[in-house]
């Protein structure tokens, strides 16, 4: 073990000391018991790193494993899921091997999550001010009074109207947008180094959504937090993500800096996602294939082969490599799309 640690440290140093990632997810595999002998693998070896202060988008359709990833990074995969393999290195520690007590102290303090549908996630019987303040009280060891003061300041920061009065409001008295702001306040009050936004605005009106996202990005920057921004709407990521990863069926199929992803998408699935927003019906039709009645999990080969308009025989038999198509731009495809 000792030798391995030394090696990994030297690798980090030799790579680029300035570019040591804040969080480095390595080969994360999550399985769910499926009734049969073989558990179902929901995340198939995720590799993803985020630099300090960076905002990484993660796009995927429902069922791709987005929420599973968000919760597994925090060490609590959704039940009955299990972390079958993989490591999450954060601030110099492999946090998945920490004790539950140590991991708990990181959650909410250094690593926090902004959840979707906050009116269900907030405790219905506790005042929102107390719920925000208890984050500070639990993690920062501040007095009750100081925690309340911080909570009130957070409510101001997330631009909730009439924050003094909202401190004593219960979750059911808030609108969806306000509840979302409360959850953001809870995620940021301890100045976390890393924030995971898990489809945080999916339940909101489009106009409110834009406000909240802008606020979230602004506050994350002010607090110096890096962010993993999980969403099913690829369009949203264009506004403020530095890099974007595309998740399909438990695998990252493409990752690229923002411009590269939008201007030169390499994976047919990414093209399909982008084409879905296109005004051109021709473009949409050429990149989307009517979904077959049943999704097949191919044991070997590309997971997207069944839906891919340019799939060849090899796609069904050999798993494509995660190849670098241009610097910092990777795609898991045998036939990455070339742009002239």
């Amino acid at each position, binding site marked *: 073990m000792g030798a391995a640690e030394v090696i990994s440290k030297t690798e980090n140093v030799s790579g680029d000391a300035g570019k040591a990632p804040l969080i480095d997810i390595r080969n994360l595999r999550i399985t769910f018991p499926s009734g049969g002998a073989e558990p179902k693998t929901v995340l198939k070896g995720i590799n993803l790193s985020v630099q300090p202060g960076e905002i990484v988008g993660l796009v995927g359709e429902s069922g791709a494993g987005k929420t599973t990833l968000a919760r597994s990074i925090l060490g609590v995969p959704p039940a009955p899921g299990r972390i079958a393999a993989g490591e999450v290195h954060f601030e110099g520690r492999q946090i998945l091997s920490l004790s539950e007590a140590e991991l*708990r102290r990181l959650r909410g303090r250094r690593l926090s999550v902004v959840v979707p549908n906050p009116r269900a996630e907030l405790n219905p019987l506790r005042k929102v001010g107390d719920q925000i303040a208890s984050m500070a009280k639990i993690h920062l060891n501040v007095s009750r009074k100081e925690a309340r003061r911080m909570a009130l300041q957070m409510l101001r920061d997330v631009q909730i109207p009439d924050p003094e009065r909202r401190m004593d409001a219960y979750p059911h008295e808030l609108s969806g947008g306000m509840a979302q702001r409360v959850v953001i306040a809870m995620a940021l009050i301890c100045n976390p180094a890393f924030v995971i936004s898990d489809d945080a605005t999916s339940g909101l009106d489009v106009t409110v959504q834009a406000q909240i996202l802008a606020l979230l990005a602004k506050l994350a920057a002010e607090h110096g937090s890096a962010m993993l921004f999980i969403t099913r709407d690829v369009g949203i990521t264009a506004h403020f993500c530095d890099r974007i990863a595309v998740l399909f069926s438990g695998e990252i199929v493409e990752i690229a800096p923002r411009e590269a992803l939008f201007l030169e998408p390499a994976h047919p699935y990414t093209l399909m996602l982008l084409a879905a927003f296109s005004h051109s019906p021709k473009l949409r039709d050429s990149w989307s294939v009517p979904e077959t009645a049943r999704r097949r999990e191919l044991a070997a080969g590309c997971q997207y082969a069944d839906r891919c308009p340019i799939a060849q025989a090899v796609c069904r038999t050999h798993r494509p490599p995660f190849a670098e198509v241009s610097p910092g731009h990777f795609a898991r495809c045998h036939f990455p799309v070339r742009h002239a």
Partner: protein
Amino acid sequence: MRILAYLAKRLVFVIPQLLGIVLVSFLLVKSIPGDPAVLMLGPTATPSAIAALREQLGLDQPLYMQFLIYVRNLLHGDLGTSWQTTRPVLEDLLQRFPATLELVTFSLLLAILVGVTLGVYAARNPRGWVARVSDLYGLSAGALPDFWFALVLIFVFYTVLGWAPAPLGRIDMIVIPPIPVTGILTIDALLAGDPEAFWSACSHLALPVLTLGLLNAGPILKITQSTMETMLESDFSRYEVLCGVPQNLVVRHALRNALPSIVTIISVLYGFLIGGAVLVEIVFSWGGAGQYAVQGVLNSDIYPVLGFVLFSAIFSLIVYIAVDLVYFLLDPRISN
């Protein structure tokens, strides 16, 4: 202020509710076959003597007249007279109801202590040994008859070990009972500053409270466990875990959210046990209200029965109003 308006609204309905209860129980009790005049005078009575007594008791009147007379007397605080004890029912009940109330209240406190504690632990660790013991306990507590369990306890703690006093009433024969203030012996003994009477009352309470408490902990345990499991699996508990809230605090918040269900089952048990403790009262010669009512039913002594029904109904209404107030305090969604 909302709470006062709500309370007033509830109280308005109490009178018609009570009237309905009295009407129904009057009709039911009257429909029990058996003529009190025959029972009072014994097998050697002449028909004319029976007829005279029936007239004196008002039994020759039509049923609705009998009911109206009963209600009129009620309004004057007269609950009728028991022919068995030859005393006014109100006096009898004021003496016996506190005995039952004391027994049932202490039993319920024990049941809450056992049921809620085990339920929370079991829900917290659903695969642990506490959960397995709780499952077994919930099952057997529901299956054991209370009088049988009482007899087992008497056998073990009185006959074999000699720790408990004889199951004969609420206080030792040689101990002078405290001056009745509330009718609840433990409280009266404390008020009178009489430690001897207090300990005697406590030692007599021990076995019947153990019987009712341990058996009625079953339903409280089951409700607590299942509600707590739901609460701990709910979104807000999961979110607290994601936020790094310590497990103890997550459990405490979940319990707060589970309280309305737990309070509900407790209130149902409380109302039920006033009459439901009767077999245990008989085993321990408790002299409680349930025992008094059953004697009345068996001997066509209807006024004790009606009086008991009235007392229990008022008690249940008080409990349910208290429960509504507790809901009010527990859940901000109701108070709005």
